[in-house]
């Protein structure tokens, strides 16, 4: 028993028949083949699977693919522009060493974009609060905070 869904991912349209229980993260990774978003906990606590659905950052491990029917989805693969120029949050993470093992990074990038979309010049506290739903076990967050600060600066 499957359902047909149509979504737009990183600007491209997709239509697939999926099981109703298929999680959005598994749809993105295994059906569409976009493996940039990661699974760190399956319980929405680590944020490695964060993507944007209709402009809002969500944890795709706790959303069914069928719930995204009709939605426009942005994943880490779609952050850079068409010419391949990295988004300013990617530049920030690159320049400020905002990643080590890289596993949480896609989620961190997506949530960092969301932080800046909502508040172009956040304070350190506001950045930390914005990052709070995403776990990183490598960096201690300081360079991630600096990366978001650098991205904010690049946006003004």
């Amino acid at each position, binding site marked *: 028993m499957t359902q047909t869904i149509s979504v737009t991912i990183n600007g491209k349209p997709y239509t697939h028949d999926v*099981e109703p*229980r*298929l999680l959005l993260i*598994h749809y993105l*990774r*295994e059906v569409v*083949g*976009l*493996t*940039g*978003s*990661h*699974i*760190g*906990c*399956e*319980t929405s*606590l*680590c944020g*490695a699977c964060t993507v944007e659905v209709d402009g809002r950052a969500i944890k795709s491990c706790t959303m069914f693919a069928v719930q995204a029917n009709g939605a426009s989805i942005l*994943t*880490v*693969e779609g*952050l*850079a522009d068409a010419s391949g120029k*990295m988004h300013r949050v*990617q530049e920030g*993470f*690159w320049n400020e*060493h905002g*990643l*080590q*093992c*890289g*596993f*949480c*990074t*896609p989620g961190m*990038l997506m949530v960092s974009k969301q932080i800046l979309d909502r508040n172009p010049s956040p304070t*350190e*506290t506001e*950045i*930390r*609060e914005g*990052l*709070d739903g*995403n*776990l*990183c*076990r*490598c*960096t*201690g*967050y*300081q*360079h*991630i*905070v600096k990366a978001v600060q650098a991205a904010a600066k690049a946006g003004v």
Partner: protein
Amino acid sequence: MLTGTATYVDDIKMPNMLYAAMVRSPHAAANIRSVDISKAAAHPGVMAVYTGVDIKDVGAIVCGVELPGMRKPHHTVIATDRVYLVGHIVAVVVAKDRYVAADAADLVEVDYDVLDAVGGPEQALAEGAPAVHPQWADNIAFKFEQKGGDTDAAFASADVICKQRMISQRMVANPMETRGCVASWHAADRALTIYTSTQIPHLARTILAGMLGLDENRLRLIAPEVGGGFGCKLNVYPEEAIVSFAAMKLGVPVKWIETRRENFLSTIQGRGHVDYWEIAAKRDGTIVGVKVKIIQDLGAYFQLLTPAIPTLSVLMMPGLYNARNIHAEIVGVFTNCVPTDAVRGAGRPEATYGIERMVDVLAAELKMDPAEIRFKNFVAADQFPFATATGLNYDSGDYANTFTKALDTIGYKKLREEQATARKQGRLVGIGISTYGEICAMGPSPAVAAGGWESATVKVEPSGKVTILTGISPHGQGEETTFAQIAGDELGVPIDDVLVLHGDTSIVQYGIGTFGSRGTAVGGTAVYLALQDIKEKVIRWGSMLLDSNDVRFEGGMCIDNASGKSVSIQTIAAAAYRAMKIPTHSEPGLVATRFWEPGNFTYPFGAHIIHSEIDPKTGQVEIKRYVMVDDIGNILNPMIVDGQLHGGASWGLGQALWEHAIYDDAGQLVTGEFMDYAMARARMMPWIESSHTCTPSPVNPLGVKGVGEAGTIGSTPAMVNSVVDALAPLGVTHVDMPLTPEKLWRIISASQPEAN
């Protein structure tokens, strides 16, 4: 990684690939009456179900450590007649996708005869405790003793002896990427390829080949991008062998990806100590002796290094101090819990926490300033190399200088004055110091379970591009960058021309791997030495091309000292591969391989100071300032180094404040998800003020010491000392970790009923 195109294990997809799901015991101790796989095997989409009987020819889990008189459990990859811990594998289901595999795993029916379990190390030693392993009724795996100097005489001569029981609670490594593997069998070649999330590709290959009965050279093991390890991937686990077995049986690739819940239950954990410390001193604060009795929770069986970890604690127990008389005893005990093993710091955090707490306990007893008592007991700068009472040889250091820098940075004297004022107002303000040392760059081969050397190959390609093959296996430590820097500096080539490859046993010469803060200090030195061989050959070929006997190599050029004529390394590389003419005593090509055996460990050290305040109404600890000054020898990449230290501190603060793998008396892990197991989040971390001093290590030509674990080791005692200092006006002399708000609130409420 920034664009979502990096390949981790779960990103690998192969034609006809199947998925495995493990069936795990929900009980910590039980006899297995029967395992009924019939419903699971009949489930649509299921290709195979294997039990312990099916897989009995696969070898048991390997432990690389032998201690005198040690009892070593035989731990098969799938249980047959008895389970020893929650999460113990009793069957594996292989199916067309992960959903079906998980569905069918639920259909495997296991009839258990549930037994009493042991949920902690002191419970294991209690009178009448159930036996974890029925053949060893006392639950003791080994006893270990180490003495240095004459502790009895020292304690007899002391003016003051302080004693304290301390717990270093179990913590979960929790890399953001769980474990996982994909195995693919090529029957015609009798060759197996395993992609697995590991820190030790070559050692894992050797061990798995042995378990599976394969020729080592026909097993290709690849560590793709690895999403953090922290010691827990310095191991070979049952699942890697089970998935390989299934792939070999079925003839198609099989993937298994650990869920986070499985990671909590069945990946090794760290710490798990109950320690009894004693410190003896003269009235003036001079430490004359240290004793510790360690009860180590080993878990239900041994993973690769399980029994060795507490012996590292013993080595580190004198800390940075001139403590000439030491006595340590370890009792290693079995529990019905997942094994402990090397987790970031591995034995040194427990020891450093102990000695740094004891120095504070002693200072409080003597009414001395904790800074003053440390200065009084430091090994002095002119004492290096310094032979410790535990048999180590500290390489270099100037502890007083580093500590002074940290005190000056935080403004210690003024801070104490402010604290005195705050205390008068009834505020709970603490200043916590940790002057830590550690053992890094593991290490000399006789001291490391599988060898402690490291290898490197440097290949200058015909175009002059440089490829480095390193035996270490970085997974966030940044050696791809650091080694490219070393090559860039030595060969005078742009860093972008250098490619660092690792983690594929078919490409890279045998290596040991990444752990024990050894990547740059040991692996980097092998790279450096191979580069020296390359330079020697470059000069030989440059001399020929320049027709000179007097050339130097600098900035990527061979230069004739007489004429000033030069030839680039790129031109030399092309000539060396074209080989129209070959210098005397040389040969074509420009490749060098070196294996480097370090003569000693390295000994980074530092001073961490934390200024904190506790809210008496909530018990919440606020870190107001965190100053760390770390001496890790020469620093090759400051940004990477600071990243390691910040991350390390998030672990150490986690242990001090939040993290605790709690097993109940039935051996159930109560904190088995991120919901229950608190780790540092961005909002919980303070801004860290990090700086350095530098005493280069004489152990390696780079003068580096290692930094991966320093932040973890240094931070925990500073945090706990800060909180205990804040509570000192209430008469508190020690609080066991983690220092949760509830725990502190109860302490404060008991002594200050009016505050609430």
